[in-house]
């Protein structure tokens, strides 16, 4: 189990170390700068942080000395000619069946580096970055340089190859509400799942499009949204337009994938070829953002439910964690050690993590909770952190 925690927060990167006195936070790094995501590369111990300067754009920061010092590295940037078809927030008179108008194009710029992922042990130097507006970037030199994955950017579900000309298909990807902070309504890649047993086997999740799979290292991509539902659209089972909040897989059984979205908790035991809804709304297990899976048993997963959808806060003022060990057929809820009165916490998509028996989550209210017994009981590691965007064991 890990004895280090990395928090990406509204006010910087917080690292906590476990010692004989308990978990203790170090002095904050990147003070004052919002950190979308912070994580440790398990292959070489490098720490990474995705910075979201309000004025100065997105940046990447790296530490090769366990957080003692940080260096800025060249962040992912779109190449010349990278365009996308602009989307706008639907208006009240939006008609989803109306024929598409002439596409409006925009030159791409990175608004947010939403997540980072690391290649397999045999893929030295391979990293991935998921961004708004929906670009997947790949580095093969440890993050010194980045290249846009063009097959995904040029996917027919986005209009085809706009580097070479006009759209050849309709853009079926919609915007993520998270992009509104940047004055746009564009999609974002927030989940990148690398198959531990086959590094060229990838899943990405896009808000708002759905899940895509590549089995050839990103040279081609296939939508994997069968069984997903969007209760808020005329055709809930449409191929595109899904809003997975977070997608993860069991490292030991990578064909077992989990996600949560506006319309429930969904589980696949066949590599995302088929999803099935496994939420239990009457037990409160339905809406939420983060989900983690057990390292070895793909049927076991945890969520931190919230009240859907417009309220986005703890259900009835009480914070709890739910766990299934049978692929979502049944759920246990755990409240021991978590506040049960006047709690308004929301736990964002990257703010729950697992390492062995330990789980940890942080909320936008600045509360951080740790479990040493697979989520059955919890203790607070602090109530006064800045709003927490990501939690990762180091």
């Amino acid at each position, binding site marked *: 189990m890990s004895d280090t925690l990395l928090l990406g927060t*509204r006010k910087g990167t917080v690292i906590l170390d476990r010692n004989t006195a308990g978990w203790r936070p170090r002095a904050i790094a990147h003070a004052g700068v919002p950190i979308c995501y912070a994580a440790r590369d398990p292959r070489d111990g490098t720490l990474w942080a995705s910075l979201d*300067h*309000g*004025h*100065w*754009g997105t*940046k990447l920061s790296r530490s090769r000395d366990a957080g003692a010092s940080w260096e*800025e590295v060249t*962040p992912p*940037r*779109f190449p*010349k000619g990278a365009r996308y078809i602009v989307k706008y927030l639907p208006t009240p008179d939006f008609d989803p069946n109306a024929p598409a108008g002439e596409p409006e194009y925009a*030159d*791409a*710029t*990175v608004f947010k580096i939403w997540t980072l992922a690391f290649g397999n042990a045999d893929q030295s130097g391979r990293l991935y970055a998921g961004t708004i507006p929906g670009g997947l970037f790949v580095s093969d030199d440890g993050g010194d340089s980045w290249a846009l994955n063009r097959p995904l950017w040029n996917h027919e579900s986005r209009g085809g190859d706009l580097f070479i000309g006009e759209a050849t298909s309709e853009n079926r990807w919609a915007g993520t509400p998270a992009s509104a902070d*940047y*004055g746009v309504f564009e999609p974002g890649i927030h989940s990148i799942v690398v198959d531990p047993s086959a590094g060229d086997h990838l899943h990405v999740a896009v808000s708002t499009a759905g899940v895509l799979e590549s089995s050839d290292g990103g040279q081609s991509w296939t939508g994997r949204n069968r069984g997903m539902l969007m209760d808020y659209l005329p055709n809930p089972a449409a191929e595109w337009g899904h809003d997975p909040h977070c997608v993860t897989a069991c490292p030991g059984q990578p064909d077992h994938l989990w996600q949560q979205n506006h319309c429930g908790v969904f589980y696949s035991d066949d590599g995302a070829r088929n999803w099935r809804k496994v939420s239990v709304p009457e037990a409160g297990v339905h809406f939420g953002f983060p989900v983690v899976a057990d390292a070895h048993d793909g049927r076991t997963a945890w969520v931190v439910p919230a009240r859907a959808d417009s309220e986005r806060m703890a259900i009835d003022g009480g914070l709890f964690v739910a766990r299934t060990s049978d692929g979502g057929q049944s759920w246990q809820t755990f409240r021991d050690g978590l506040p049960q009165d006047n709690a308004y916490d929301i736990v964002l998509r990257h703010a729950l993590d697992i390492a062995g028996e330990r789980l940890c989550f942080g909320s936008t209210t600045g509360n951080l909770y740790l479990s040493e017994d697979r989520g059955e009981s919890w203790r607070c590691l602090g109530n006064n952190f800045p709003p927490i965007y990501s939690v990762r064991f180091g």
Partner: protein
Amino acid sequence: MPVVEMTSHLYRFFPQLQGRTISVPAGSVAEVLRALETIAPGFSDYVLDEQGALRRHVTVSVNDTLVIDRMHLSDRVPEDGTVYIFQALSGG
């Protein structure tokens, strides 16, 4: 030669610019920023996006006139001009 002044927030990332007079050749605002890039590598990425346009919350003026061409930065900077780089204020 024109001089460049900027918000002190940028000195956090480019301390080599603090406390010195930054003189650059006259030309367009784009040329001024390219000159700054040679003095402080990486500076452009803080004020421009990868398409070369001014970032949304960055403002540049030549003397007391805000630049008009935020996309290509073609506004001219005279020999005796001062270029100011500053940011919109936000809280939270």
